[in-house]
């Protein structure tokens, strides 16, 4: 068999952690325990998991406003994340960042980014560090079909090719930039083809298929580690929630959500595949479900009990010295 049980368990645990984390965020937002804007990643779990399983803490990722999944897949502490999203002082960013700005530099997660198209130029920089210092680390930027139209992304794609940077651009095409269809806002037929036009290898894959993501990411990450330069993956995926939590989603078609949840749920598809192939027992995955549920419960409990920042924290950490 091609995949070890350890690998499959890790993949499943990551995806399920993201799923339950997001579902709980939606609930806690509705209960008033999470302030601000929250953008849930549920539905897209296979992309974050399939890419980040190839990365170490020294490899760098940059993410989006919809960044919880990337954080979890890159190894950020789920409890620290929940505290951060609740605005608590013991959160990963001391409550200063919130849902859209979670980072954990020790894990190579240099930031969720609330500016659409914010991360690709920064990930070029991380890739430039790797290249200049002669490490074999890589940078991965996550963006959506929306960010694919931002000038920053297009500039970064070209510069990555010009400087031959070890940077893999992941374009998660979930069909929507906020509430506008990609069919409308993306002027070309294929984002993979558009990206290839910059002079890098690029392919489109089914982003709801963990194994498709995992294999393609492996190929491109290996290429970058060997000095082969940048590449791009357009992962066609689905978004289970709105643009933001609380979005009434009036732009959805009739039965659209029911349909994608029934037929394009990447976690269901993963379970079906691994049980059909007899790679993993359903019972083992059920156990993981229970473990993950307990972890999320603990995250919420600790998050609720964590202290808010002190007034003096308002002024802290603007500069190292000033």
């Amino acid at each position: 068999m091609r995949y070890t049980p350890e690998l499959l368990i890790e993949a499943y645990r990551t995806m399920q952690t993201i799923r339950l984390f997001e579902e709980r965020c939606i609930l806690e937002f509705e209960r008033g325990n999470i302030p601000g804007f929250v953008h849930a990643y549920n539905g897209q779990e296979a992309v974050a998991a399939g890419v980040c399983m190839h990365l170490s803490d020294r490899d760098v990722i940059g993410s989006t406003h919809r960044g919880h999944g990337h954080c979890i897949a890159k190894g950020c502490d789920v409890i620290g994340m929940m505290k951060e999203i609740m605005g608590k002082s013991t959160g990963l960013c001391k409550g200063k960042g919130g849902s859209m700005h979670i980072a954990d530099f020790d894990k190579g997660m240099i930031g969720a980014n609330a500016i659409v198209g914010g991360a690709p130029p920064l990930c070029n920089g991380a890739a430039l560090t790797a290249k200049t210092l002669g490490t074999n680390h890589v940078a991965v930027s996550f963006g959506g079909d929306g960010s694919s139209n931002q000038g920053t992304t297009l500039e970064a794609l070209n510069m990555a090719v010009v400087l031959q940077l070890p940077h893999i651009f992941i374009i998660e095409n979930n069909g929507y930039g906020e509430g506008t269809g990609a069919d409308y806002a993306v002027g070309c037929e294929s984002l993979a083809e558009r990206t290839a036009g910059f002079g890098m290898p690029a392919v489109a894959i089914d982003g709801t298929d963990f194994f498709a993501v995992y294999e393609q990411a492996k190929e491109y990450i290996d290429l970058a580690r060997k000095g082969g330069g940048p590449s791009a993956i357009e992962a066609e995926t689905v978004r289970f929630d709105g643009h933001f939590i609380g979005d009434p989603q009036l732009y959805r078609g009739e039965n659209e959500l029911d349909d994608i949840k029934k037929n394009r749920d990447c976690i269901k598809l993963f379970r079906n595949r691994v049980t059909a192939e007899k790679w993993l027992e359903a019972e083992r995955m059920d156990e993981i479900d229970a473990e993950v549920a307990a972890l999320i419960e603990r995250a919420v409990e600790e998050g609720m009990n964590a202290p808010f920042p002190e007034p003096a924290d308002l002024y802290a950490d603007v500069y190292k010295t000033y």
Partner: protein
Amino acid sequence: MTNTAKQAEATGTSSIKTYRQAINEALFQEMRRDPTVIVLGEEVSGGAGTDGIDDAYGGVFGVTKGLVHEFSRKRVIDTPISESAIIGAAAGAACTGLRPVAELMFFDFIGVSFDQIFNQAAKFRYMFGGKPNTPMVIRATVGAGWRAGPQHSNMLHPVVAHIPGLKVVMPSNAYDAKGLMISAIRDDDPVIFLEYKTLYDSKCEVPDDLYTIPFGEASFTREGSDVTIVAISGMVPRANAVADKLAGEGISCDVIDPRTISPLDVESIIESVEVTGRLVIVDEANERCSLAADISSIVAEQAFHALRAPIRKVTAPHTPVPFSPVLEDLYIPSPERIEQAVRDVLEA
């Protein structure tokens, strides 16, 4: 004795260098000392992908000239004309282990890269809970007088001084330029380093060794007791000339060059105004919501009791920079306008 002269005393050999040479020397010496320092931007070497020579430009005003020969294109990186990608690459490199010095050519180009400066680099430390250092320098040229017209001549430093998380450095002479550049490269926060175009060939004694000038310490370029003149960047030599002229009439001026406007040495300005009771602020930036307005409000709040005349600001008007030399010369604060402002506050 001025602060500048005091600091120069402490060093070894020195020679007359231009502002351009001083910054170039700082880059050479820091790149030799620290292998994580890189330079990137448009034409920092020049000639990439051409049949001609490397170092064809050495930066738009020749400030990075020669670096590519010693440090190769690996550390002296010519980029496409993509300012967002340049600043983004610098910010991403800075928070992952390098000390990039990115060149923006003309500071007017912050318009096409601003998100990466103020939403990204400037906010990293704060919004990520104090963890990341972002030790990057953005070099750019400022100022009118080059007949470069509305889109290559602005000052715009008030725009960046407004932003928490950025430090803003504006040297007015070669000595300060070298010491401040070395400090900027070694600083762990993003630093905007603004070079006044028509100062590039100005000269003074500059130590050959490495030295740093701390941020937030103003320099008194002239000392006096009748009027305080705070002058910024390219306006400092003009203010000095006016002070020298008026000294012949028995009017003595403190001329304060803040050198860095974020952090700003408020203390030195207040101390001076406490003595003189009269303040003239000379800055080539546009007047509204500006550094001059900021200094004016700080002094009005903290030293109102000491003021014996209304504060006067000598700035550019609320217009873009015009091209026609006749109009451009009117745009830049002239020695005559500075002198008149000093006389006005003395007569008030």
